[in-house]
């Protein structure tokens, strides 16, 4: 799970799904949508296993439980990917609706199936078009306040590591070093965040010979470039 900020649940969600569900099964109906409803039922059952009974949503604790069921560390990127699939809005929480969307998209209804679906999910997310969306989502997901537009550099460092670390180890390590040392930027915007990904994808590293200060790279990357150049000299 991506790092949580100090719990300030000021983001109010109207959650139609936070109906306290009992552990009873569905009422058998003569509906032709039996199969579909069965699926939903399975999904719902699974949801209930991890959801907080009083709030009706899966909370950070529940997610931790989920992670251990999936045998995935809770700081693993795959949980973030799952959140993305679910279009989860609030970091650290899954609503029933989001759960349903996610599991339906993955075509799973048991924990075992979900676990097996994770590699496929990862592959799908890493497709260029999806990754772009996922990458932006990662930032968005960490915003906790209503009008918040920035993330602190510490969060960004962790996020960078999680999201880009496996593909761009060197760049990420240097970026993190820089972010920790520099004093000009205390927070990072979405535009800057996007810039990091673009940088990793487009700029040859570590020579950075195709980096051009005259272009519209966010100035934090200009500063990073100059810092690294000096270091290399």
């Amino acid at each position: 799970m991506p790092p949580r900020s100090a719990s300030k649940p000021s983001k109010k969600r109207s959650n139609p799904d936070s109906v306290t569900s009992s552990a009873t099964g569905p009422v058998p109906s003569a509906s032709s949508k039996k199969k579909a409803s069965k699926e939903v039922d399975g999904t719902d059952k699974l949801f209930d296993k991890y959801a907080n009974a009083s709030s009706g949503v899966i909370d950070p604790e529940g997610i931790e439980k989920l992670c251990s069921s999936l045998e995935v560390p809770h700081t693993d990127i795959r949980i973030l990917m799952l959140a993305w699939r679910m279009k989860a809005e609030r970091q650290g929480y899954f609503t029933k609706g989001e759960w349903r969307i996610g599991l339906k998209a993955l075509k799973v209804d048991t924990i075992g199936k979900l676990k097996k679906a994770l590699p496929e999910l990862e592959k799908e997310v890493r497709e260029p078009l999806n990754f772009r969306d996922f990458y932006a989502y990662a930032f968005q997901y960490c915003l906790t306040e209503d009008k918040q537009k920035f993330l602190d550099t510490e969060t960004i460092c962790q996020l960078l590591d999680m999201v880009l670390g496996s593909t761009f180890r060197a760049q990420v390590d240097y970026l993190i070093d820089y972010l920790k040392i520099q004093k000009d930027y205390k927070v990072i915007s979405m535009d800057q965040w996007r810039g990091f990904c673009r940088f990793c994808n487009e700029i040859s590293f570590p020579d950075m010979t195709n980096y051009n200060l005259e272009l519209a790279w966010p100035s934090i990357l200009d500063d990073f470039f100059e810092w690294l150049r000096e270091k290399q000299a």
Partner: protein
Amino acid sequence: VQERFGNQSFRMERKTIDLEQGWDYMQTGITKLKRILEGLPEPQFDSEQYMMLYTTIYNMCTQKPPHDYSQQLYDKYREAFEEYINSTVLPALKEKHDEYMLRELVKRWSNHKVMVRWLSRFFYYLDRYFIARRSLPPLNEVGLTCFRDRVYNELHSKVKDAVIALVDKEREGEQIDRALLKNVLDIYVEIGMGQMERYEADFESFMLLDSASYYSRKASSWIQEDSCPDYMLKSEECLKKERERVAHYLHSSSEPKLVEKVQHELLVVYANQLLEKEHSGCRALLRDDKVDDLSRMYRLYHKIAKGLEPVANIFKQHVTAEGNALVQQAEDTATNQAANIASVQEQVLIRKVIELHDKYMVYVVECFQSHTLFHKALKEAFEIFCNKTVAGSSSAELLATFCDNILKKGGSEKLSDEAIEDTLEKVVKLLAYISDKDLFAEFYRKKLARRLLFDRSANDDHERSILTKLKQQCGGQFTSKMEGMVTDLTLARENQTSFEEYLGNNPAANPGIDLTVTVLTTGFWPSYKSFDINLPSEMVKCVEVFKGFYETKTKHRKLTWIYSLGTCHLNGKFDHKPIELVVSTYQAAVLLLFNTTDKLSYNDILTQLNLSHEDLVRLLHSLSCARYKILTKEPSTKTVSQTDSFEFNAKFTDRMRRIKIPLPPVDERKKVVEDVDKDRRYAIDAAIVRIMKSRKVLGHQQLVSECVEQLSRMFKPDIKAIKKRMEDLITRDYLERDKENPNMFRYLA
């Protein structure tokens, strides 16, 4: 058929003339003509002879076949020339050389033209019908062509050599027969029969080559031996002579070509060596103020494509160096001397820069004929050194201080009004070179405020005059606030009159103290910190009374009191004699505390007045540690500390009856720079939004450059700053990056 000639009518028996017979007759005429041309004693043709010859041709052409001899006569006409040329003309020419040959040629050409004229008159009838019918060249042309083919083609090369030799002789200073050369060269022109080809190919091209190599040789030795001015004089002279040459005997079309060649050899090939000559080149001339030589240099290089660029460049470097030297001088003086002397030096710098500008503007206008290259060079030079910092002060600040010194009382009282106007004019012109114009405006505004509020302005007319000049140069927006300030003062005076009337009509409201209030319109004036000092009760009453009055005038405005700008006159009842103290409101507040208590500690005062430590220390220092010790401090150390205590100094006295106790001014510089930086951020934002709103989509580099251009009237924006503002606007959802091209931006409505 009858022809009429003169008065006689002629009847000729139309007996058939046979060719041989007719030609024999014609020969007599031709022979006669030749004799005339050869200068032999031979009378001229009379009209009867002429007519006979003409008629013979006529008849032979109009006879019935097989006796119509037009073709044969046409051929014989040409043969007549050929025969004469071969037998007489050519041999005569071939045996002569050089100038003699030239003379002979001129003579023979002239003769030939006469011969053509006469013979073509005799044979005229052919011209009328025969040549047209057969599309043949007319007689005139035939005649000239004979000379061209037989004489000219043979000799033109030799002739050309002889001419060029004479030209070079003349160049070396010898006298030559110019008329002769003119006549010879006319042949080249005429032989072209309407085209300049022969002249150009057979003479001019060689002449140009020869001229080029002549001047090349000269230049290579002159450039070693002569100084730059001397070389230029020689060049100018050469060009003059060559132009004269053209006027005297070359064809006018040769002038531009010849001039170009000479210029090239003398001025283009050696341009660099000439201009950069160590002790006499362009730099040295500028250094030594050699105005005439520089004017000559301009004249010479003006006509050469891109010739002025190196000159303008050296000019720019020279002016820049001079300017930099002035700046360095001021910097050195400032670091070596005490602060107040240093600031005088800085003012001297501005004066010197103005003088430098005047001096070199004269150069631009007079030596360099106001050519745009030099205006540009001057401008760029000034832009370089006028934006340097001197002893920590930006040029914007120096200039503002300079203006303040002229406009304040005791500043420039020795100068005449005219001199002041003139100086103000020049100062405003200098402002054009300063990139941080907004910084100047802010410093100016701050100092203007001081002058206006403390009645330190020397002359209202001058104040308004400079604002007009600034407006003209920088636009209305630049001066609108300042003008507002000046207007405020005028209104304030009227307001004060109404206030006094009001007090007159409401004696109960009278605070018992003479109160003058100046109401300032917030937007116009610099921002002042004003914080809530606890005023003494007398002053509180004043404030309330004025508030009451003001509300009768308008209910919609809020009054914010700026005590830091107030002045107070107190009567100090000292033991020896009473003295009027002119102090700031804050100082007054401190002093009035001692009306009720004899001794107060620092903390007492702090609590009672509710001031910051920094401000209080400053105030107490001015009253107890400076020149006039109105309060005695315990312990009597040189600086104020928080453990001190203070007492009214009843023993204080001075020979004056009224003294001013100044507060050392707070350093405005930091605040001004901060304010300007803040304004710039807004200005950059506004410019970006404005541009994007109208363009909708724009590439990064273009956006940056348009932004810089839009803002350049006021300041030179830092590219990094623009980038940061753009990113901020992205976060605030004014702009977004294009999805395909992240270097492209879109406006978000």
